[in-house]
């Protein structure tokens, strides 16, 4: 036993020495990154091999091109982190990044310019299902000669090799932990729309079905997709929100709705770390998306672009991206739970991944979703419920009452003009309500307005 233990100790010590030796070989920026993430250097094992590219690329990039232009959705402060690691490796290549967040900037401008024989960028990141536009224009180069392309799983690459995933996202839901108990969370997506728990404006929906519903639609079929969409938008009566998905998270924190769909795991995580009262939850199957990039065919800095892509697809690039914006890596060698903010939300659950038919599915989804979204179904006031209860508390001179409903404390506002009050069969006012009175309260759910209060 002692021998085994000694051998193990020797092995661990040997591994540690190797790790330390490897760590010392890494550029300073990479070491800083690993230290900030509290990762061992062995997470980057084999990185030197991964970063080997044809000498001709290096010569052209360092001596002739000297820069690479990138369109991406990364925030400047996040980009600085990514770039600090890349620049330490390749000081001869200057990276110019533009933050592009609208479809006009990401797709239309570069495509329109390309058709006029002009290049605005060498690389575009964040293609969101629009690769076909670039394919039709013959705009993207084949990337199969990029060495680390092989480290990306096949389902995260286009079959014709013109686009490859760089990061993954889990798009699920966030909820306000002060308003929603864990046991109330839906286990499946069908549970979400079949229960009234999140009906009547308690659920907030952003207009980005492509981020989550498209995956579910494709994995469950058209009939399921249509039924679900109708139940979600018409029966459940959610709040339709114009705000972006990240801004929606802030509204969940505030409690404007009990829950929001869709929410990205990597955006919810940092808020939880700051102490915001939200949780992240994924019903099954879990919508799992990838963010793709493409390199423009004939781009002015094509060699530098390929070197950059190769680096981003390497373990070092993938970890740098995680360091900058908590993006889950797509590299096959980095599928570890350290990179997932809420591992319990996705562990052991089936993933809904987009397939080859997603472009066509997207069109069918939009045809169904868009009109329902726009009609919204009209405002339906919350359903009034009548209960027999004993008034527990009279707040602000009767402007609000609190009472017990099946062991839970409910409140209802009492309007001076709209709420009909009777005490002992005679018309009464708010001031005539007293704690302990046995009353029949007709009100629009917890926190809603009372329509009538009939007390004995």
């Amino acid at each position, binding site marked *: 036993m002692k021998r085994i233990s000694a051998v193990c100790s020797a092995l661990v010590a040997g591994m540690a020495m190797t790790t330390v030796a490897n760590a010392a070989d890494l550029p300073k920026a990479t070491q800083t990154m690993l230290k900030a993430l509290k990762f061992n250097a062995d997470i980057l094992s084999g990185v030197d091999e991964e970063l080997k590219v044809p000498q001709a690329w290096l010569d052209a990039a360092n001596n002739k091109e000297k820069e690479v232009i990138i369109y991406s959705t990364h925030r*400047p*402060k996040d980009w600085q982190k990514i770039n600090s690691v890349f620049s330490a490796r390749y000081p001869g290549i200057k990276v*110019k990044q*533009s*933050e592009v*967040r*609208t*479809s*006009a*900037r990401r*797709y*239309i*401008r570069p*495509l*329109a310019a390309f*058709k*006029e024989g*002009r290049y*605005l960028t060498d690389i575009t990141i964040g293609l*969101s299902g629009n690769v076909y*536009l670039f394919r039709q224009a013959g705009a993207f180069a084949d990337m199969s000669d990029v060495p680390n392309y092989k480290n990306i799983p096949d389902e995260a690459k286009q079959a014709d090799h013109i686009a490859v995933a760089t990061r993954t996202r889990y798009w699920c839901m966030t909820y306000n932990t002060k308003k929603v108990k864990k046991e109330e969370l839906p286990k499946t997506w069908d549970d979400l729309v079949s229960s009234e728990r999140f009906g009547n404006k308690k659920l*907030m929906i952003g*207009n*980005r079905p*492509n981020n989550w519903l498209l995956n579910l639609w494709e994995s469950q079929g058209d009939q399921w997709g249509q039924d679900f969409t109708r139940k979600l938008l018409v029966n459940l009566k959610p*709040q*339709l*929100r*114009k*705000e*972006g*998905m*990240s*801004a929606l998270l*802030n509204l969940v*924190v*505030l409690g*404007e*709705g009990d829950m929001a769909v869709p929410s990205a795991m990597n*955006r919810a995580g940092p*808020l939880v770390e*700051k*102490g*915001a009262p939200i949780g992240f939850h994924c019903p099954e199957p879990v919508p799992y998306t990838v963010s793709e990039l493409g390199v423009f065919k004939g781009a002015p800095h094509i060699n530098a672009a390929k070197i950059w892509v190769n680096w981003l697809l390497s373990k070092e690039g993938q970890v740098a991206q995680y360091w900058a914006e908590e993006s889950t890596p797509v590299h096959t060698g980095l599928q570890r739970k350290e990179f997932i903010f809420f591992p319990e939300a996705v562990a052991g659950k089936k993933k809904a991944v987009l397939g080859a038919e997603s472009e066509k599915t997207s069109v069918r989804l*939009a045809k169904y979703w*868009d*009109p329902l*979204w*726009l009609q*919204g*179904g*009209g405002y339906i006031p919350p359903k009034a419920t009548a209960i027999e209860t004993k008034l527990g508390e009279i*707040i*602000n001179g009767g*402007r*609000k009452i609190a009472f017990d409903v099946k062991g839970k404390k409910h409140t209802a*506002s009492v*309007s001076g003009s709209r709420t009909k009050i009777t005490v002992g069969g005679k018309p009464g006012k708010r001031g005539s309500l007293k704690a302990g009175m046995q009353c029949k309260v007709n009100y629009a759910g917890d*926190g809603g*307005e009372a329509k009538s209060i009939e007390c004995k």
Partner: protein
Amino acid sequence: MAVETLEFRATSSWFERLRTGNPWHWALLVLMALLVGLPAVFLVLGSLSQTQVPTDISLSALNFDNYLDVWFDPVTYGLFYNTFIYVFGATAVGISLAATLAWLVERTDCPGKIWIYAGVPMTLAMPGMLQAMAWVLLLSPRIGFLNTFLVDELGILPGPINIYSLGGMIFVEGLRLVPTAFLMLVPLMRSMDPSLEEAAAMSGAGPSSTLRKVTMRLLLPGIVAIVIYQFITALEVFEVPGILGMPADLFVFSTKIYQIHHSATVLPEYGKANALAMIYLVVAVVATIAYSRVIVHQERYTIVTGKGYRPRTQPLGFWRWPAVALVVLFLLFSILLPLLVFIYVSLLPFVQAPSLEAFQNLTLQHYLNLGDDPFLIQAIWNTIVLIVLTSTGTVVLAFLVSLVVVRSKFIGRRFLDQLAFMPHAIPGIVLGLAFLWVYLQGANFGFDIFGSIWSICIAFIVSYIAYGTRAMNAAILQIHKDLEEAAHVSGAPHWRTMWRVFYPLMLPTFVGVWVWVMLHVVRSASLPLILYEGPENQVLAVIIWNMWDEGEMQAVGAIGVLMIVLLLLITVAVRSFAFGSSRHIQTAQGH
């Protein structure tokens, strides 16, 4: 025979005017036709196009399918009722408030005028989505800070005020319409000769009768121009209906256009959006024709004559303090409360309702973090350059256009006026895409300003020329031709007439337009987002938009607070300088 002669004379006169038209009038018409005509044609062609990438216009892919799709959709007509109530309500609230405020500062002895001058336009600097969001944080029935305070803490209100309602939308949009109308009305009221009102009073007319029969009638061209302008603004703008209407299933016309631009298919169906947006263009053309009929007898509205005038203030007496209360309430609702929300949000680690715990955790971190943005300083500098170029360019071009429209007999003057108003009816994204296409083509003809600050500047000038010309038209209408003729008779050349007669009298309007454009340039992101290229050409509005899209509300709050304080100071300085000079000139004239 007589008829023939008359016809001949008419033809001769028309032909003569065409032949002898001033060359610079023609140059101006051609310039405007190029600047405005291209986006307008782009809008029309785009509405017929079936291609996915909007710059790929091809004759073989043009048909009326987009029109059939959107105008035969019953949903489109279902939106008209809400749209009607919302647009009329917001325009009425906005213009009546603006007229009251302009009258108070220009024609009465209301105290604290400098705060009204500086404070009212500040609403313009706040992007619509931020202001609407501030109102959600204040008056949402679920989480509104103000609702919580008034209902739960003080018990003043029986139930929460619901900002997610048609009334809420009218209130917030109405507040947003005030500054533009105010900036247009202030110079008009400032230029009014009080002797006309005095004459009415001397003839026995009461104050309300004088207001109705003299003041309002003299202001008619200005008021009509403002109503038309603001009506289309309310019809077109989406931020307020989007943030306050959609969560309560209240949809208006602009919601549908937004929906198409943000379709679930990710890439917008620009053709359909353009087909719907054509209604803005139709309304704009009909409105300008109606307007030109209103001002057909323009000499009726001349107020500033060669006899000199001195603005006289009306004592408010007992009404002084209610007037102050109205001003304070307006400033509170339109700028102070939203600003307080932003200050509060900018100091939080994450957005949360006010509480003891929240106040204990306040931090300046988001202000300090602004320094980490590597492009912020460059963006601020670009924004300053853009403000100076765009504001000055718009003032000069708008003045020249209005001079021709109002003062000349140029045969194309009405068309010129319509051209100048059209950009207000073209959605920002269409204008941006049209200029993107033009700049891409321009490189082939040696005109390569693609992606630069200049490219944004030109698009902005076109975008704001409608406002500039509405304000200038109304102001020039008020200046009697006697003044120019007297200068000509005295042997003054054109430039001297401009410099010595028009410039001093128009100065309040120039400043008003300059400030208005400045405040719009600072906040508007739609055009720069399409046109700028590279971080070195980024402007502040783009950085704010990106932060907002990323959900960094605290950072947006921090940058917004700093921006509004800075703009407040600039507005006070510019107005004090310009109105100081103007008053000096008026006083000299009076003597």
